[in-house]
């Protein structure tokens, strides 16, 4: 990759910049509680909630920054925020 004048780039170019490493807390689903209401998908500011074939959702941890909005808004408390530990 070489830098274009002024850093002009095509749409989608930030895919290479994986921001998942910024996360302190990781959202985790409890599928027994999930009612597939889609609020988490709707409210995620980073488009990191991906729809699954079975109608449930999963997180894209490459880009989820762990903001916790999904967990806060979930009407069934089906998302818990778990500390990232190595």
């Amino acid at each position, binding site marked *: 990759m070489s*830098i274009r004048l002024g*850093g*002009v*780039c*095509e*749409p989608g170019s*930030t895919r290479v910049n994986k921001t998942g490493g910024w996360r302190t807390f990781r959202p985790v689903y409890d599928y027994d509680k999930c009612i597939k209401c889609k609020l988490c998908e709707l409210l995620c500011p980073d488009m990191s909630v991906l729809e699954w074939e079975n109608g449930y959702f999963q997180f894209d941890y490459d880009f989820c920054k762990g903001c916790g909005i999904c967990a806060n808004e979930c009407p069934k408390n089906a998302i818990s925020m778990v500390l990232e530990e190595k």
Partner: protein
Amino acid sequence: MAVIRDLNKDKMDVVEGSYAVAHSVKVCKPNVISAYPITPQTHIVEDLSQFMADGEIPNCEYINVESEFSALSALVGSSAVGARCYSATTSQGLELMHEILFNVSGMRLPIVMTIANRAVSAPINIWNDQQDSISQRDTGWIQLYAEDLQEASDMTAQAFKIAEDKDVMLPAMACMDGFILSHVYEPMVLLEQDLVDEYLPTYAPEYTLDTKNPLTFGAFADPEIYTEFRYLQQKAMDNALPKIEEAANDFHKVFGRYYGGLVDEYETEDAEIILMAMGSVVGTIKDTIDGLRAKGVKVGLLKVRSFRPFPVEAIHNAIKNAKVVVAIDKNISLGLNEGALFTETKASLYNTNIDMPVIGRMIGHGGRDIPVSTIEKIVDEAANVMKSGISVESQYADLKEELL
């Protein structure tokens, strides 16, 4: 090549400096002009507004904005879609643009602005010095300084040509001293439309914002690549050095007028004392030199047209045979007690084999008049440096001790 003027009276008009610049902008066919009034720049955008009202600038949008911050921000978007963009400002207005100045340069948008140089507040002062633009020297804008109305007018077209060059693509400030140039009337030749069309190619950037072909401008750069962006901006500045010379030479070919490229020299060939300066004070210095030369004083002038990029090589070539150099500044870096031209000239000589005393004298701040006597006093001090070395490296040359 010495200064070449066109003194054909049939072609000359007597106009105000602001009008001359506004006319130059008009014939450069801008697509977007943003305007916010501030003294002493206001006449420029007023005249442009009149041209717009009279239908004299086709295919152009004139945007009234609510601040200078918005004036430049509006041009960021306009320039990105491929428009030739212009605005004018000064002093506090330019300082309010500070943040956007960096954005424009980093996004490599070749916007041209006229700066009608004025002192900065506080205390509020609307008169001329060059503190406003000098304070923006690290923002990545090309800075050119004009000596008189004809040069300020002609420099506007040159600024577009340099800024929009594909090897440069940097914004440019064409600086003219507020009031001294912006409000004075002089006989001069207004730029002819057919010659400007010949001189200045249509602006055709490589990338433009376009809904049919979406691109991201001004994207994020993390530590992995930010350094390379800054390096490329500096490289563009390096590229601008020969382009500024080229723009002046091409201008001479088309219009027959010439004021120097990066620098211009006056009576420097055998000069023991060389004064360096930028802007309208150059005229006063030339007059002073004429008087002193008649008395046998070997004094010359190095006029610096381009402050950014800083023309190190051209300056060295001009001063290398002098015995003492004086940099004259209409600005001060508070805390260092030096003007920028002095600091940078002095710094550029370190690590070279050019060895001579360089002193700095600051004059004309906040519009203080610069009579020939002030310049003569500075030349006297320079003569003393030749005899007995430097006593005071940098100071105000026109300080009123009685007020302190």
